[in-house]
């Protein structure tokens, strides 16, 4: 899942970058914001969740 998260985050950038090929400002805004949302989902939604699955507080090693 970590790799999927990385790829989704990069995909978000590619979508935002692709907005440069458009000519209308409104269209560029829409595409850039969609790209930002995809990147955020990849980082916070997928990548972070993948890390939390094996987080230290879910194991027995969390007792100080």
């Amino acid at each position: 899942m970590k790799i999927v998260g990385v790829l989704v985050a990069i995909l978000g950038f590619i979508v935002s970058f692709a907005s440069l090929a458009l000519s209308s400002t409104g269209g560029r805004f829409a595409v850039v914001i969609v790209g930002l949302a995809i990147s955020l989902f990849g980082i916070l939604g997928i990548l972070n969740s993948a890390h939390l699955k094996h987080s230290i507080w879910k194991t027995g090693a969390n007792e100080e």
Partner: protein
Amino acid sequence: MKMLGAARISLLLVALVSSPKCLLAQTPSTPPTSTAAPVVIPKPITDADLANVPVPSADTRAQGDRNGSLTGNAGDITVSDSKKGLTIGDLANQVGQNKIALNIVWTLITGYLVMFMQLGFALLETGLARAKNANHTMMMNLVVYGVGMFAYWLCGFAIQMGGVGAIANLGGTPALNAEHVIHLFGKDFGIFGQHGFFLMHKGTYDVGIMVLFLFQMVFMDTGATIPTGAAIERWKFSSFVVTSFFFAAFTYPLFANWAWGGGWLANLGVNFGLGKGYVDFAGSGVVHTVGGVSALAIAMILGPRIGKFTRDGRPQAILAHDMVIVITGCLILAFGWFGFNPGSTLGASGSGNLRIGSIAVNTMLASAAGLLSAMLYMWMVYGKPDVSMTGNGFLAGLVAITAPCAFVNPVSAVVIGLIAGILVCISVAFVERNLQVDDPVGAISVHGSCGIWGVVSVGLFADGTSNYGGSWNGVNGSVTGLFYGDATQLLAQLMGVATLLGVVFILSFCFGTLVDLLMGQRAPAKSELEGLDLPEMGSLAYPEFELKSGN
């Protein structure tokens, strides 16, 4: 006699700048009317006039200059030919050198202030750590300076600034003129610079370039020290060294090239009509967000400290060991910010640089607004004006104003700071409770979230009144945001944010993961429980304190 010499020089300089040959293009010319008094056009001064300018005699100087009226006179101007004496050419050269000298001294001194921010970060992070990790935290903040500088000298500076072109404020040496470009959509996209490795490569052993290196190096180091805040109390020291080296050598310089070094983000205006291209005056994005998203990547890889979350995922408070040095650190950082933001003009003379006064005031106002809004938010929501969050609000205002400080008016600066102060409080709670990422100092929120807000706020609040030489990023006119009529500037800023998330974060995450696989990023649990000072550093920060606490 003494005063006569100084007065004569003053008159000559007035005559020089008001002579017909020296009229500026903007000077309005009003033709004399028949009723007006006859205009007396001063005679152009000649070398002969300069030869007659008296200077204090050696006997006079030998008596000392108690009231300061003798020191600094025509005799101090270097003459190119002693037989000819002082000429207009010498005078003009001296004026030019004085302008560049002012700019160089300004940039160096503000760079020294930024370097001093390292102490602010060190105190802030160490104070928020537990006493058993104080030595380790201080050591990270010290070593990141040396490791970062070394990496930046080797290749980071060249990657960042190797294709920026001549910096007119610092003398205009053209040696940094090789940008590697790729072609997409029929346009050139600058990717990285190629001159300036070791500060010796391709004519870069130059006084102006040395000044630029010093100033840019301390900026990079500010960025490099941000991830340490999110990773304290559990980051293995050797892995920290390797990760910081990579940050200074590649991650930071790449984005800095795209924004400041003539790269593709800066040219979004020229190539695609997006405002003045991506605009980030002093680095809300380049320094703070790059550091903030790298901090997020490292914090995710490391995982939370032992004891930070209960088994059902509820966060637990891990108390700071010294709030006195935390607040001391915040105030030192705010002081250093007067180098960070006004210094980013790279000069005090010419090209609209006198706006440094406005930049400094905007910096102060935003920090005060961030402090107040964070304090009031915590007071209203949690019942007490939390000390560490008030400090974070103070810094949040500073981070947010860093990109727009040169382009906005004081009211906008206050609004930007107020929003940043509240944003940092919400972001810290979100990162801890929703993301379950352990960020002991709030670096992700202060530098990442508020850095992004700063980048976006340029596209909203830039009022179009600044004029740094008539253009920005190669596009004529002043930087103007959405609220003042240019929506495309906001688009350029959002492209910058998309790059920070989709490229810079990923670079940091991938390299951090590689280091984790090769040598492990996290210190062993036994060391973490004991405190990293002894296992990692071999000595305690407070040995007596440890004994008194019975450990």
